């Protein structure tokens, strides 16, 4: 039986075949001897933690990087891909996580950009219009060819990216973390489109870190861990638990258990808060909520609906209007200061740990005191730093939070994303704050570390602290929080008890549909 299957696969050459691909960046081996074969007409998932080498591998396939060794076969033919132009002519199309669209161009103009037939656009545009209509019909990719990109939703913009690839006659479509910016229903729609494309004979490579998407959408799945391809499995014959174990290299608990919360007094009270961004756009449009001791309030929503600005305003990073009081003490919103926040025992774990939470060029021990350098344990009244104490603290806290490597002399830059996050968490949580503001606690964090981080947050809640958690991961919101509000277009909608709601209901709210 098995032999005949092998024979059959020999008949039709695989869409993509990689043999022994290796790639080093300085001392880092991003890809080690990777071999992969993707069958024609399948959806092939690639999962792996951050830094496992997925993006590097796809960048090699798309001609952004040159492999140090190894060969690429496209449709059975050995192919050398020095740049993206070569990838396109080999029939490979790529949809990036961050779209590459000209915002003030129409769909049509974006589609022909770089694929014009001559110096005059009229003919190309006419030709593209016909082809676009055909493609839209064939694959149910309904898009108005004359719509301007900046007026379109993110989901539609993504379809334009797919159309761009199809217009260039891509047979193999690579999608890099395509659902990061989509609402759950948009994501479902995307998967329907992808399945349609597959049924028409296209080959799709889906890169993601979300196991649920792999289970829902793919036929085959390959798992990468620290630069190596650890397994390739039939999706139907595996489970999220098995995949997680393959990704991390040990057993992982995907669900966390938490006790009933003991609610106390109101800790943080926000009234009619408005936040304007640098461009003068009102991003938070007068929202009101409170958080009590011993509860986790989740703020869900698709990225870009004002959650980041809300968190930064509460964290003293951004000016705002309205009123915020902490145990009855009003914050100075006109001249916010991160120091005022810390003096009130509010800890802020920012969404963007690399830009805000850490000084990447500082060593881990210097980062452990960051924001708390005025505390008497770290500096004398005359302004001398107590570096010894900071180093000791760093060693202790890094040990307790299992930050790896444990060398506190390493620069923050040299830690992985998950360990950087643990550094920030160790700094903020170990000070035992009354209120914790935390944004995207597990973004870019390895599955193994997610479990740990979630437990730390729950532990703080059980000690009676008030927690505001902003996350775009619905699963995280559902499993961690006690109450949840959805942020949509600068407003908070739908204040729900987490136990009484579900992904479906929140998903609708995230799309702005108020039931």
């Amino acid at each position, binding site marked *: 039986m098995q032999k005949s299957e092998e024979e059959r696969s020999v008949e039709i050459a695989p869409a993509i075949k990689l043999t022994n691909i290796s790639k080093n960046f300085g001392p880092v081996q991003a890809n080690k001897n990777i071999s992969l074969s993707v069958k024609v007409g399948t959806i092939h998932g690639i999962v792996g933690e951050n830094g496992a080498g997925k993006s590097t591998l796809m960048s090699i396939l798309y001609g952004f990087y040159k492999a140090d060794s190894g060969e690429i076969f496209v449709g059975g033919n050995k192919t050398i891909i020095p740049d993206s132009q070569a990838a396109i002519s080999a029939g490979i199309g790529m949809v990036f996580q961050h779209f590459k669209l000209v915002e003030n161009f129409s769909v049509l103009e974006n589609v022909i950009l770089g694929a014009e037939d001559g110096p005059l656009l009229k003919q190309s545009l006419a030709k593209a219009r016909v082809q676009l209509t055909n493609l839209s019909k064939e694959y149910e990719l309904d898009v108005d060819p004359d719509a301007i990109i900046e007026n379109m939703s993110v989901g539609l913009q993504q379809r334009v990216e797919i159309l761009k690839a199809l217009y260039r006659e891509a047979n193999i479509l690579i999608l890099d973390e395509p659902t990061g910016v989509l609402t759950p229903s948009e994501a479902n729609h995307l998967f329907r489109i992808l399945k349609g494309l597959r049924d028409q004979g296209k080959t799709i490579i889906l890169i993601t870190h979300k196991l649920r998407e792999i289970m829902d959408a793919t036929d085959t799945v390959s798992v990468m861990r620290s630069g190596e391809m650890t397994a390739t499995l039939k999706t139907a014959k595996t489970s999220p638990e098995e995949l997680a174990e393959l990704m991390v290299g040990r057993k992982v608990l995907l669900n966390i258990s938490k006790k009933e919360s003991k609610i106390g007094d109101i800790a943080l009270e926000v009234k009619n808060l408005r936040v304007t961004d640098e461009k003068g756009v009102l991003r938070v449009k007068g929202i009101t909520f409170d958080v009590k001791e011993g509860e986790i309030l989740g703020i869900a929503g698709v990225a870009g609906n004002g959650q980041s600005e809300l968190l930064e305003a509460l964290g003293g990073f951004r000016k705002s209007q309205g009123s915020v009081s902490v145990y009855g003490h009003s914050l100075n919103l006109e001249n916010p200061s991160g120091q005022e926040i810390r003096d009130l025992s509010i800890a*802020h774990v920012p969404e963007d740990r690399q*830009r*805000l939470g850490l*000084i990447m060029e500082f060593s881990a021990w210097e980062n452990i005191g*960051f924001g708390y*350098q005025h505390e008497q344990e770290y500096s004398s009244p005359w302004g001398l730093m107590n570096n010894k104490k900071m180093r000791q603290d760093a060693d202790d806290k890094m040990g307790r939070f299992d930050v790896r490597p444990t060398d506190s002399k390493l620069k923050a830059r040299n830690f992985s994303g998950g360990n950087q996050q643990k550094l920030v968490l160790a700094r903020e949580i170990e000070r035992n704050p009354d209120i914790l503001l935390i944004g995207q606690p597990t973004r870019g964090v390895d599955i193994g570390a997610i479990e740990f981080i979630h437990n730390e947050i729950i532990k703080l809640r059980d000690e009676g602290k008030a927690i505001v958690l902003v996350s775009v991961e619905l699963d995280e919101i559902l499993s961690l929080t006690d109450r949840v509000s959805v942020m949509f277009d600068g407003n908070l909608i739908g204040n729900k008890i987490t136990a009484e709601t579900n992904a479906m209901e929140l998903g609708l709210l995230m799309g702005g549909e108020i039931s």
Partner: protein
Amino acid sequence: MTKLPAWIDILLIPFINLIIALFLSALVVLYIGENPLDALSIMIKGAIGSSYGWGYTLYYATNFIFTGLAVSVAFHARMFNIGGEGQAMLGGLGVALVCLMVPWPHWIVALPVAVIGGALFGAAWAAIPAYLQAKRGSHIVITTIMFNFMASALLVYLLVNVLKVPGSMAPETARFAEGARLPTGHDMLGWVGIKFSKSPPVNISFFVALASCFAIWFLIWRTKLGYEIRAFGHSESAAKYAGISPVKIIMIAVLISGALSGLMGINSVMGESERLVLDSVQGAGFIGIAVALMGRSHPFGVFLAAILFGILYQGGAELAMWTKIPRELIVVIQALVILLTGALDNMIRMPIERLYFKMVRAGA
């Protein structure tokens, strides 16, 4: 391992940069029609071959330590203070006023006050660009350049109209009284019985410069202010997250920078000319940029780079005296060093990094 060892980072790479700069300069020397090796030997002998040469080399180096430290401190806060020239001119004015206005009994009393005077005037000249940057976002590169021209004009005005000795033709102040003259290298080494050439202007300010190196190292790596300055310099957004005030850090860092430039006055005005003359700074403010770049903004690196530039300066003077190579060749070398260490740093760094990691991997 993802990091180069320190000796490669702060010694080997600048050294290679210097060798390349010298090699390119050698081509220019060849073009002029002189033998580059002879030229190099004249330069080195002239700079460090005698106590006379050393005296000048260290005098120049003292100036460059002050201005190099000035640029470095601002660099740590990611501020590019290129107003060292003007700040040093004003610092010289401050030193001169201190020296002229009080009949000092002895230099031991005069020096500390002159230090304060020079630092205050230098800092004051940096204060307006600092304030404009901190509060209004006016780029400090632009404003400090403008302040260089203003300082130069101000000095001309003061020396011609206010401070000039009545009846004198020269636009310079009166010579300072005996009690405000600093001991030279000859004097100081004479105390311990070592013979040292009498003519070079190196003086006790050299030790003030060394003390400044240590003080700045301590400030940057051992104090809370230094911690905040470095944090702000690496990431303004993270500094803001931590509640560090950008206005405060910009002001303080640039004021310290200006003060260091101003301190140069004790060497050039009080130590060398013993009066305030028009062109007392002689471009040292700009050389400070090269020194800071080459020393990678570390006080010890600044010290080494300043000595090197002192050698180049004194050697260049000798070169102009004994060959037909113009003194400006030094400016060429200096420009090449800035080009290589500043703009083209990665050109050298990347291949060395690759080579180093390849060797590490092969070893492992």
